[in-house]
């Protein structure tokens, strides 16, 4: 995957060789001359788990920063995703670690902040105003309410639909929950499976469940009440949102509990299923598959009786953190402020096809641009990712397991809600989030 040549490192090597030659020339001529050493260059090390992020950063994005800041040289190191947290724990605690590191949002960044090895960024970043609330929640430590990262990106989750299938059957994007069921019924009657969900993977079920049920549960208002300790997941609105997962079962692909994420992508991309609730990253997956797929996206429509508008489910997708042991905190601060700027996101988000966590960016990919627009207008936090992953069991894991039981005929929505609530009560305490 990462076997593409790195023109930048090659050029750097050539430049290095040149400067070495020049350097020796200076030394040779220096006997008589007054060779003043140029301003010292500081090298900052950035860690990330993502090859794609490094390719984007080194493939032109950081060049813009380095041109504006000639005394700062930024090296990007990719550490294997599998061991990333372990390596970062060790790296941040001792020497040889990064100055700036990508860290996953919510529970992970909170845990690193608690260890005292990250520097809070509240005063380091001069302007936070453009960032959205959803994105900032993702880099805020639970314990002290301080921000420990510059948001890297946002994932939204929505329903992907196959435009060709909809057009063949003369269907329109549903505008109410009842219409959604009618559309599903019509697709089913035509012999195509209406909906695919990666039912073998707990996290994917939880994400799909959030797309389908977030507005029914009450969106951000419910989340705020839940974190304040005023409601629990056994609240009737929450149970009703889980019941939807049972209600749509007749429209799901066969043997849904054995469908992996890869299979779900293939099933949707080949037109075997017409709708697929999933995250922003599928835009890139579908493009990589090279499938001749004409797709669109929509947010799950609502029923008037719920008293809530449709939402775009969103969650923060990591942030750039500052090591408390960085030897060049000033230069790192310069870099982090640039990583927070619209200029950076204009370059980065368009290279990566991700949704920027702040306003003021023009997105080129039409699908991502649509999601970005909806996110800015109606973004609603993915409750599970934001608040149910600070202890074992993860609320999203129990949700996935319980919905699998519903699909296997072993559980009811009420029972599932009770199991999820009692699962997280092992560690969830609203007081921990009081800020």
């Amino acid at each position, binding site marked *: 995957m990462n076997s593409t040549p790195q023109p930048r490192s090659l050029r750097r090597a050539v430049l290095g060789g040149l400067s070495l030659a020049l350097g020796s020339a200076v030394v040779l001529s220096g006997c008589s001359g007054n060779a003043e050493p140029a301003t010292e260059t500081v090298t900052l090390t950035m860690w990330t788990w993502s090859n794609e992020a490094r390719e984007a950063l080194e493939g032109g994005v950081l060049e813009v920063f380095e041109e504006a800041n000639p005394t700062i040289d930024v090296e990007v190191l990719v550490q294997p995703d599998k061991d990333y947290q372990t390596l970062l724990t060790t790296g941040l605690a001792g020497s040889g670690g990064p100055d700036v590191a990508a860290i996953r949002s919510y529970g992970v960044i909170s*845990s*690193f902040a608690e260890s005292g090895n990250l520097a809070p960024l509240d005063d380091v970043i001069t302007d936070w105003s453009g960032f959205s609330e959803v994105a900032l929640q993702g880099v805020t430590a639970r314990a002290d309410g301080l921000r420990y990262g510059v948001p890297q990106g946002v994932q939204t989750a929505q329903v992907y639909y196959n435009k060709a299938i909809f057009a063949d059957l003369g269907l329109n994007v549903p505008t109410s929950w009842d219409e959604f069921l009618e559309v599903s019924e019509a697709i089913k009657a035509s012999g195509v499976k209406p909906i695919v969900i990666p039912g073998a993977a707990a996290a994917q079920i939880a994400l799909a469940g959030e797309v389908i049920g977030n507005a029914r549960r009450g969106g951000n208002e419910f989340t705020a009440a839940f974190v304040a300790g005023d409601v629990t997941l056994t609240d009737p609105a929450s149970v009703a949102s889980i019941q939807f997962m049972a209600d749509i079962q007749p429209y799901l692909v*066969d043997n849904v509990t054995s469908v992996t994420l890869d299979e779900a992508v293939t099933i949707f991309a080949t037109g075997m299923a017409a709708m697929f609730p999933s995250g922003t990253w599928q835009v890139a997956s579908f493009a990589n598959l090279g499938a001749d797929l004409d797709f669109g996206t929509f947010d799950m429509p609502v029923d008037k009786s719920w008293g809530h508008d449709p939402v775009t489910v969103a969650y923060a997708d990591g942030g750039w953190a500052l090591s408390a042991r960085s030897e060049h905190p000033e230069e790192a601060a310069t870099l982090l402020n640039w990583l927070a700027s619209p200029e950076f996101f204009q370059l980065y988000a368009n290279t990566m096809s991700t949704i920027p966590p702040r306003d003021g960016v023009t997105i080129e990919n039409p699908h991502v641009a649509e999601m970005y627009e909806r996110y800015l207008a109606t973004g609603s936090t993915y409750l599970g990712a934001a608040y149910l992953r600070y202890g074992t069991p993860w609320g999203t894991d129990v949700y996935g397991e319980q919905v699998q039981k519903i699909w*296997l005929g072993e559980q009811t929505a009420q029972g599932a809600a009770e199991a999820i609530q009692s699962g997280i009560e092992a560690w969830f305490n609203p007081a921990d989030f009081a800020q």
Partner: protein
Amino acid sequence: MTAKSTFDAKRPHPVVIAAFILPAFVLFAVILLYPMAAALGFSLFEFKGGMNLVGFNWFQNFVVLFTQEPYTTQLPRAFAHNIAILVGTLILQNSIGLFLAVQLQRFGPLRRVFQVLYTTPYLVSPLVVGYLWTLLLSPTFGPINAALRGLGLDALALPWLGDPKTALPVLILVSVWQWIGFPVLLYGAALAGQSQEIHEAASIDGASGWKRFVHITLPLLTPVIGTVSILTFIGAMETFTLPYAFGGATGSPAGSTDVLSLLFFRESFHSGASNALGMSSAVATILFLFILGGAVIARKLLGRYEENLT
């Protein structure tokens, strides 16, 4: 020549012995002893975010593990699955492995070819094996169910890994499929080492093939059966990669393939809990003590049985 010098000639000076042992011991200590001791130690402490130590809290992590949800549900469930995997693989690996090894004895030169064939899956990472079988067993795209349907056996074209009733048995079968080459090799070597004279003598005395197998071959194989069983025990209790490849970190579907190592994985790398290190070390310690205890007891019992044989 004095007695002492003879002694010296046979056994080098302790310093020399130490110098020869030291490199291996240092490696052993750094790679094995230290992490083990560290995990045992960590299980007695409370942490706050990563390696940030709060303090010594005796056996509190273990008390939590045995008295609080979700552990009171997940620990016994995972343990039961490990035992099921152990029983399944123990029976299948020993019986099929021995059967194949005995059959291969008669194959002559072709034996090598089959030994290599049986051992091949053993050389592939369980993660790869897991993903391969996930593809093969897929109800939508997999060739296995397509073949079953082609043969008119539609009733057998099940969602193998999507149904809690079949997921664990399939996991056991694939695990046996992968590791079968190992007992085949061990039994093959042991069979080849058995003296033909005893078999010939028994033949002359009129013992049938089956009688010779039960009364000569099998008793002589006891030490190897013991070795295979203990290694199977350790493998079954530690199994992680195949369940992870099949059901992810949660033991999908609905926790039906959850095992102790997955519980450890969720606790340590997939938790976000402040005291993840302390709790996951407690899980690891219990797993370690159980495997150590089980292996020691099994070894003792086998030793006694082998003594009775001679």
